């Protein structure tokens, strides 16, 4: 057996003899299992609930009686964001964004009823998911197990004995690294088994799962290297422990909170009130449908009359009100899109700033990698919002077209006793409307988004390994 493996085996034997260490590992494994099970159950519950709600909303829409199409524009519909199977591993921002959205004409509503606003204050302490356990808890456990790996040998003078027996410094460090690396993989194993369990789910994508597995394995391995690095540099095991806990607190707890606050201050977001007032203002300048003398709509009317070669809107072969509704919706939707894009861009800039801090905290890099691969990051939410808006626009314009073609202009303006009946069109029209189907991103898209995080992690790994190689050359030297 090679010396490196001998040292590794010895280190592992020492850990196994340490009852506290064994209990800690067992607790971590239990915690991961609980996290996998509860996250799994939670996501299944959510998927079931959202599926049920979506189905109820679709049937309600189709069960509408004969109606005027514009009534249906205001009746609107509800869409619910479905979650990919990987959300059971890392639900990301799901609890913080609303997951149901009311789609209606003329307005872009917010996604409402996120879990964070429906839970007790405990939700802000963090959510128990496999991702949380591996990102936050597992590194601290590795620290407890590994802080003394080299500092202990230096402190007690056993390092010199080892070297007297012909072991090189490199062999000692590699052996300890092997041992701690094995423990790190053991710590990550239950979560990875959970991840593989998810693979059996329909719709789970292989590439993102691979990215997640690689990311977490790299992250835990990185901590193993960092722990040994500090253990090499510091000569007393107590100092090694304190330094590592401080490092952990800064990288895992502090920076992930400070960076968002800094990004929030650096890139301001426009609030809803200001956006809505601005949209109304722009809409008035583009074309004020309430103003009978508005130049845009006067021109629009003239163009419509010219197109059909008639003199008045009553002579048009189509319902002019429907035509107007289509134009109005086009104008307002284009404005909403413009403001939404500006807001999304600002949020993406904020997230970009946070990602830069990933250079200082591997936890931030891993978190964005993990959420991006699971499709539960801001980009994933934005995907839902944009698809929902596209669906809303298409639905409303279909309904407006029905008004234009199937409701006559004379009936539409009539107020006599039977007018209400004549304005309505048959219920089968609602059943012909397509349902909202979220089209999930492809695996390569998700991995593409996860790549920057993976690169930062690799950079960390390379830097940490190089430092360890450099530091181990001076291991045990008197300073």
């Amino acid at each position, binding site marked *: 057996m090679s010396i490196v493996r001998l040292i590794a085996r010895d280190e592992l034997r020492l850990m196994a003899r340490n009852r506290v260490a064994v209990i800690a590992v067992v607790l971590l494994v239990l915690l991961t299992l609980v996290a996998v099970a509860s996250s799994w159950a939670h996501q299944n519950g959510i998927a079931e609930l959202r599926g049920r709600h979506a189905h109820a909303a679709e049937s309600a829409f189709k069960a509408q009686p004969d109606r005027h199409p514009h009534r249906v524009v205001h009746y609107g519909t509800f869409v619910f964001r479905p979650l990919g199977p990987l959300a059971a591993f890392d639900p990301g921002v799901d609890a913080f964004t609303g997951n149901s959205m009311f789609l209606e004409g003329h307005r872009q509503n917010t996604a409402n009823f996120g879990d964070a606003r429906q839970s007790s204050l405990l939700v802000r302490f963090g959510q128990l998911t496999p991702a949380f356990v591996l990102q936050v808890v597992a590194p601290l456990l590795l620290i407890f197990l590994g802080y003394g790996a080299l500092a202990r040998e230096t402190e007690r003078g056993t390092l010199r004995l080892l070297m007297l027996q012909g072991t090189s410094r490199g062999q000692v460090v590699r052996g300890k690294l092997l041992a701690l690396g094995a423990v790190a993989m053991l710590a990550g194993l239950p979560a990875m088994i959970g991840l593989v369990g998810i693979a059996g789910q329909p719709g789970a994508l292989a590439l993102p799962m691979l990215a997640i597995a690689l990311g977490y394995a790299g992250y835990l391995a990185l901590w193993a290297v960092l722990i040994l690095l500090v253990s090499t540099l510091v000569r007393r095991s*107590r100092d090694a422990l304190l330094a590592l806990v401080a490092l952990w607190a800064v990288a895992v707890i502090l920076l992930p909170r400070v960076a*968002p606050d800094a990004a929030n201050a650096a890139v301001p977001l426009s609030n809803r009130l200001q956006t809505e007032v601005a949209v109304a203002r722009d809409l008035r300048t583009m074309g004020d449908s309430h103003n009978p003398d508005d130049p845009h709509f006067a021109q629009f009317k003239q163009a419509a009359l010219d197109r059909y070669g008639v003199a008045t809107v009553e002579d048009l072969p189509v319902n002019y009100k429907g035509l107007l509704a289509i134009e109005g919706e086009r104008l307002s939707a284009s404005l909403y899109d413009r403001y939404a894009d500006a807001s999304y861009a600002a949020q993406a800039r904020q997230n970009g700033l946070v990602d830069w801090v990933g250079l200082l905290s591997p936890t931030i890099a891993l978190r964005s990698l993990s959420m991006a691969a699971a499709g539960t990051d801001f980009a994933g939410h934005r995907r839902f919002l944009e698809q929902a808006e596209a669906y809303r626009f298409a639905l409303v314009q279909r309904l407006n077209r029905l008004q234009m073609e199937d409701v006559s202009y004379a009936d539409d303006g009539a107020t006599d006793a039977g007018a209400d009946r004549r304005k309505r069109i048959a219920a089968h029209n609602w059943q012909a409307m397509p349902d909202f189907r979220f089209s999930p991103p492809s695996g390569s898209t998700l991995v593409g988004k996860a790549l920057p995080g993976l690169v930062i992690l690799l950079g960390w790994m390379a830097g940490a390994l190089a430092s360890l190689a450099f530091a181990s050359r001076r291991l045990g030297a008197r300073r």
Partner: protein
Amino acid sequence: MILFRHECRLLLRQRLTVGALALLALLTMAALAGGMAEVARQRAAIAAIPAAHAEDIGAIADYVDRTKDAGSAAYYSFHPTWDAPAPLAFAALGMRDISPYILRVRALGLEAQIYDGETFNPELALPGRFDFAFVLVFLAPLFVIALFHDLVSGEREAGRQRMLEALPNGGRALLRRRMALRLLLLWGLLCLPFMIAAASAGVAVSAVLIVVAIVAAYLLFWAALAALVGRLRWSSVANAATLAAAWLVLVLIVPTLANVAINASIPVHQGAEIAMAQREAVNAAWDVPREATMRRFYADHPEWADSAPLGPRFHYKWYLAFHQNGDARVADKVHAYRAGLEARDATGRSLGWVLPSVGVQALLTQLAGSDLAAQLAYQDRIRAFHARLRAFYYGYLFRDRPFAKADFDRAPRFKDVPRG
């Protein structure tokens, strides 16, 4: 006193300690500055409301004035409400980053409006805010651990234990002095910046006193825990590891486990169900005789029952009436939803009695008016304001009074609530 000063000099000679104390002071000040900047941003957003509102309403008034139709005025006018941050909000931002503090409402169905959210970046909200409450609840215990874990074991490892035990009373006075000094330093570094910030924010003295007492109690808990672990006569390293593990369990693991347990044991009927039921109730009115809608409305609101009967033309009083009927139809669901939220919150808070981290967070957000109760109180104020809005517009619609430009200025205005 002189002994105290010597002890202080001894403590400040340790580089690790001085570094830790400086770091804590820096973090406290950064968190306070960040919290105050966020609160200033929120105040500025609230201060910008009147100008935006005036512009919006002005344009609506221009075209409503042509028809003098109170219904159009009611339909198109959004009225702003807001939840101004309490003076102490900078210390504990609580839910203020994910719940709206500005919401515009119309005199239409409220249940379709009151749950609307605000624009915020979910990725930034996910890890939680960096505020004073975070520094206290999450970080301060780590500093206590760093300063307290080797108080006794360090002496033992340095070979001075025997000598200390030979002192009168086993050197306990010395130990007490050391602990008091460390606690005092930590407490001062947390509380002095806080008190300066609180004074500049105009926080009531009583609230400041409560917060500094909370800080003292929380630090004392961790110091006591460290002393307890110290009595096991383990090595400094073992003490530090044990305390850090205790921190992990008490601050991170138990709260997250409890969150899962609470959400599983207290199911909250999703708000989405309210929104869907309300929409059904409102839109069904188009397919039932209008007189039936009015009868139902007048039964609930007899004060308007003497209004003229509906003619064949569309009338906004019917439109607003079925919106209000729709709200009434889901009132039970709304109560159940709110009761569920309150039950979850109450259970989370009661955990604070056994878990200091949760208790401190709950107390601070309560004092800072940034917890769920404050959110619900804001919703209550919106509901009360909305009732006034309805009464205002109904006064025109049900009496068929014209609504002119000047009437826009008579609309009720949301009032800030003064808070201590």
